[in-house]
């Protein structure tokens, strides 16, 4: 199931990337001479998001998935706490940066966009963050039975692992955002 799910997600992401690259035509580069500024507040939220992902990776990936033991105790509490923080950060970032990360070409009246290297992973992060969040929240309801709990856990785990790729990508792009 893991493999199948991973393949499906990778295919979707590939299409997403392919689509994104395609929409970013050469004309955009010419029409977008400067990059948007990132304020202190936004940087803070972004830092919180990175911290959340780091903590989630540490508690979820390192302590649970790699060690193979079910998550419990303090790691689980940290995981739940930082999971909530991540969703808050994602919502705020989507509100603040959503328009600046649109993959379509810019036109008159559109806000200044980030570089494509930041925009593409941004939407990955949002999509995978949504999958992680939805599965986590559903698992907290009395709806899924044991079999669905298992499936949701697997989806949550795969999404959680996959989100690391765009986060790292985005972080590098964010770090280098002012370079030409």
């Amino acid at each position, binding site marked *: 199931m893991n493999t199948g799910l991973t393949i499906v997600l990778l295919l979707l992401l590939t299409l997403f990337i392919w689509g994104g690259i395609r929409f970013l035509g050469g004309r955009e580069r010419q029409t977008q001479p400067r990059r948007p500024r990132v304020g202190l507040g936004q940087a803070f939220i972004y830092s919180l998001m990175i911290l959340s992902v780091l903590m989630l990776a540490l508690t979820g990936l390192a302590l649970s998935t790699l060690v193979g033991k079910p998550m419990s105790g303090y790691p689980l509490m940290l995981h739940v706490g930082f999971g909530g923080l991540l969703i808050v950060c994602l919502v705020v970032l989507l509100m603040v940066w959503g328009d600046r990360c649109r993959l379509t070409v810019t036109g008159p009246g559109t806000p200044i966009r980030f570089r494509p290297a930041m925009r593409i992973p941004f939407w990955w992060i949002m999509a995978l963050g*949504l999958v992680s*969040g939805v599965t*986590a929240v559903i698992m907290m309801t009395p709806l899924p039975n044991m079999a669905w709990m298992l499936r949701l856990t697997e989806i949550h785990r795969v999404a959680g692992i996959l989100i690391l790729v765009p986060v790292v990508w985005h972080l590098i792009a964010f770090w280098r955002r002012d370079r030409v």
Partner: protein
Amino acid sequence: MPFMHGKGIDWARAIAACALLFVLGAGGWCQEVELLKTHSRSPYVHRITLYDAEGVAISPEDQAAKPYSPSATCGKCHPVGAVAGGWHFNELNPEADSGRPGEPWILVDPRTGTQIALSDRHWPGSWRPEDLGITPWEMIHRFGRHQPGGSYGTIAFGGEAAGGGRWPMSGPLEIDCMACHAATQEHDQAVRARMIEEENFKWIPSVALNLGVVRGSAKDLPDDYDPEFAEFAAFDPNMASPPNMEYDADVFDLNERVFFDIVRKPAAERCYFCHTTRPAGPQGDFEAVDLDAAGPERWEHDGDVHLAAGLTCADCHRNGIDHHIVRGFEAETLGGELRTTALSCRECHYGSEIADSPVERMGGRLGAPAADHKGMPLIHFEKLTCTACHSGPMPQMQAGRVQTSLAHGLGLSERGRSADMLPLIAAPVFMPEGGIEGAPLAPHKILWPAYWGWMREGIVEPMHPDEALRAAGQVLKDRPDSHEAWQPLDEATIQLALEAMAGGAEEGAEPVYIANGNVYHLKANELVRSLHPSAVPYAWPLAHDVRPGAQSLGARGCTDCHAPDTPFYFGTVIAEGPTTASMAAAMPMLDFEQVDPTLTTLWGLSFKWRPLLKIVGFVLIGVLSALLLAYLMAGLQRMLSFIGERGE
């Protein structure tokens, strides 16, 4: 002289018996003879001839007929040697797999304030009877009332040193097949206790099955009595007479055969004679209780949900002819090999990967429903056994008391069986299954050991209660020796007894009293107490009665356990014993569970905010979804426009 029945020697019988004994003695009889089998699900009608221990067929007309021997009678068709290696009979076999700790024999002596777990299985925390100088003879006298025979009852006849006793007069306490396999209550298991008091061991199977009555008592025979000369008692009025078996002729048919109403799978009522657990004291819900108050009435109990559904004990606790009875826990071994038949809770309900049978791998055995456990995080199935939520009394803020057949003689009629009768067993106590660190939490029954002992270089060796009585002089002798009216030991009495014992102590030996999870000893003429490994409670997992899903822990929600004031985590267990109540401390359940108190408290507190967390989580996910959907729609719109522009 078993073949002299007043009419001279019955040579034909004697020769037949000698031939049988020769064959039996040659060994391998049970294994080599191909046994009669019907291979049908319909039970074989057992209209059979009875044989005595010498293999002589029993006639009700014979005034000197011996008691029937189950091994000689049933052994005609069944491999009794193999049966004797089964779970109920192999306690003394050092090769036998002890498995998960189970209910021990509990030596109780109200006068000395003793309650100590005994077992010849290798269960941590229990003492071997011989460590206290307890012989098989004494074991039978104390616990034979709830033993189906064999083991301690026959060891003296198997060439093993049995350490004294009046075995020649009593005869062996053979495995009584009918104790379990009787189809009706015609077989009276309670007869055993009375007959053991009379030392009429070998007559027990006959009398319990109501085949007749036994006249006389082996207890009255002198110590120097020689059973070889029993036949002469009829001629010598001064000679002690052995008990005499008087058969009921109406039980026998015209062919001198007896109908044995036998079932292969015993009814639950047969099992319950030895395996009843009774809540002693109120079993309220989540309330602190008065442990000494009377327990609920029998009619108030629903019993085990499996029995209510029509199953019997033996539907799950099965066995083959080797009588290695499935105890039902996971990773269990049978006869030294891993059990591959799906018979634990999880295996029956959900299937087992290790089962040999493909249908057993699918679960749903005997119609066992695979519960959905909706919304239950999977971590619970790693951290808890099924029994943690489903079995035993509902946990209260203070673990309750239970009484059991083996410990309290349930099944035998008694008037003064009160809630505070010794031994005091607490349940449910949640701790790693079988006491193994890291194992999932399971409900247990626990016994706080209480006994007198000698401490040498920090190691405590328990005393037999009789030795404690002698060593303590008059201090303990004056105490009541009654199960009904026992008096708790107070610190002053313990100090006086220890002082008396110290006077006669050997070099390097210090008298101590273990109780309440502590060791009591003298230091500069003062009574002091401290923790000691010998004082930790003996614990064994409980699995029954199983409550239905609607009455399980968690049925009312997460806060059944995850709140700052739940019995599961924040309950207490009184370290009580045969001492005054003020000496018994309340131990936190968290200590038994070996979990972090801070974490558990934090986790419990967090569930106060969990509903809010869920609401916020849903709102945030909703907002995130809506925003993403809006951007997706905008992107699609832009894409369609782009395609349209290109088309133009």
